[in-house]
């Protein structure tokens, strides 16, 4: 029996268990519901707005971008929070005390956060199709594009979440270290309004990160070809989309194991104990 392969198998099962437990938890159900209702209300109140000169209704234009933003946001902040928390509550230390435990743990995290993407996207996608007309112009080819953009987007952003969760000093800091930059990045990535309305250098910054490209890829899947005039360079830039996302995925795949190993090396019982005491002080 190959212990590494065995540990990865255990990790996959761990991720699946975490996913099932999360679906059954009222807390997580509440989170999915809250995100979905918020997004749908936003689209609903803007349902009669027409984007000037395109004949496109606002929900049609905004939905793919919002899905892209949710993907990037959820897949970065989710693992960052989970990892920061499980460093403090001893989950990670338990795995460090097992043979090949870290491999199983990381596999479990990757599995869980990939799976969690489904409910968060589906709870928005399904009701949107019931509420609004003319959302998908790409047909079967469009859905195919959705799948590869989501998969590449996942591979590009998930490692960022793991790295963030490994380097933040404490769970409380995920907000300032993680949430803030991701929110700013989302705001400048052409999710809620076209990127052309921003200054040139801001456009440059946005295009260095995956969020913009995930949104662009999803828009190319959902929107009619005529909408391409709203994009930079009047093109869907499919080639560059693939290139940028793959580049991020490669950087992540190279960097993440190193960062995780460094973080795991520093885990010890007294660290967990210190975090527990710090958190008790927060409560009282």
């Amino acid at each position: 029996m190959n212990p590494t392969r065995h540990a990865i198998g255990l990790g996959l099962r761990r991720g699946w268990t975490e996913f099932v437990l999360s679906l059954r938890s009222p807390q997580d159900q509440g989170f999915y519901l809250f995100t979905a209702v918020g997004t749908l209300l936003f689209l609903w109140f803007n349902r009669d707005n027409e984007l000037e000169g395109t004949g496109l209704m606002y929900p049609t234009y905004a939905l793919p971008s919002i899905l892209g933003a949710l993907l990037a946001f959820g897949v970065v902040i989710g693992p960052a929070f989970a990892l920061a928390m499980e460093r403090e509550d001893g989950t990670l230390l338990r795995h460090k005390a097992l043979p090949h435990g870290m491999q199983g743990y990381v596999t479990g995290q990757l599995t869980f956060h990939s799976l969690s993407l489904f409910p968060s996207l589906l709870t928005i996608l399904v009701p949107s199709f019931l509420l609004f007309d003319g959302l998908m112009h790409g047909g079967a080819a469009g859905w195919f594009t959705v799948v590869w953009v989501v998969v590449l987007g996942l591979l590009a952003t998930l490692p960022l979440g793991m790295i963030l969760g490994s380097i933040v000093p404490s769970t409380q800091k995920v907000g300032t270290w993680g949430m803030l930059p991701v929110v700013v990045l989302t705001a400048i990535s052409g999710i809620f309004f076209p990127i052309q309305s921003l200054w040139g250098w801001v456009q440059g910054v946005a295009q260095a990160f995956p969020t913009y490209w995930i949104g662009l890829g999803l828009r190319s899947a959902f929107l009619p070809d005529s909408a391409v005039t709203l994009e930079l360079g009047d093109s869907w830039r499919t080639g560059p989309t693939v290139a940028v996302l793959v580049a991020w995925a490669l950087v992540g795949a190279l960097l993440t194991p190193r960062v995780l190993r460094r973080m795991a090396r520093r885990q010890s019982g007294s660290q967990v104990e210190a975090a527990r005491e710090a958190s008790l002080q927060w409560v009282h």
Partner: protein
Amino acid sequence: MRAATDADPVVSVRGMRMSYGSVDVLTRVDLDVRPGEVVCLLGPNGAGKTTTIEILEGFRLPSAGQVRVLGEDPATAGDAWRARVGVVLQSWRDHARWTPRRLLTSLGGYFLPYSTPECPRPYDVDHLLGTVGLGEHADRRIGTLSGGQRRRLDVAVGIIGRPELLFLDEPTAGFDPQARRDFHELVHRLSDLEGTTILLTTHDLAEAEKLADRILILDGGRIVADGSADELTRRVAGTAEVRWMQGSERFVHPTADVVGFVRQLFEQHGDELTDLEVRKASLEDTYLAMVQRSEVPTTARLQEVAR
């Protein structure tokens, strides 16, 4: 790597030092733990107990010294070594949505590749749950377990892989008396039936006396005493206190030779003696004496350094 024989110590530490910046937590630690022994590491807060045990677990690097655990250096030992070592960690709020059965099955799975006919790993989950007294709580959410039940689950997680060597850091902190007794029985069973070598730290002297074959007292960053509870008690001068009344006067005299002293007392005073009482020195007296003796005024007592 040569094959371990019975004579080889399971844990062997020579000249271990640990400092954080300019602060020395361990100045020089030498210790041996032999196969099958239950050894208790005793010492005041900040003496370096947790640091010592974390170095032996391979979770921390010592600043200097030679450390051997099961024949390997824990800092560089691989996963096969890890499979032979059990660590009992104090849980807090992890895996709240899981059940004890699910968690033990999941974590125990990692030991399967290291199972041998002589030493089948991991333990059967149901059997283990029964052993630690969690049988009827096996399918409850861990988040709903009481503190004592959680700690028993911690012990189960620590031993699921049938370790040859088990580390326990303050295992009974926060236990009620019943849970404490149950835990002591569990340790005896592990040690007697499985021959598990056990190294634990505690503040509780009664616990050390009850569990340990051998007690090590750690103070000021080094081992200041090493022996069984009896040996340690004998080593401190005046192992017993004789109290008596003579007329209306009360006397107290510490002595190592109780019988001789009392005989002499009777020869000298005979019938005048009333209320004769002999009190043996407790491990507590011994411990306090040892810790005080090792105290150097300039040694600053450290808070447990949490890093």
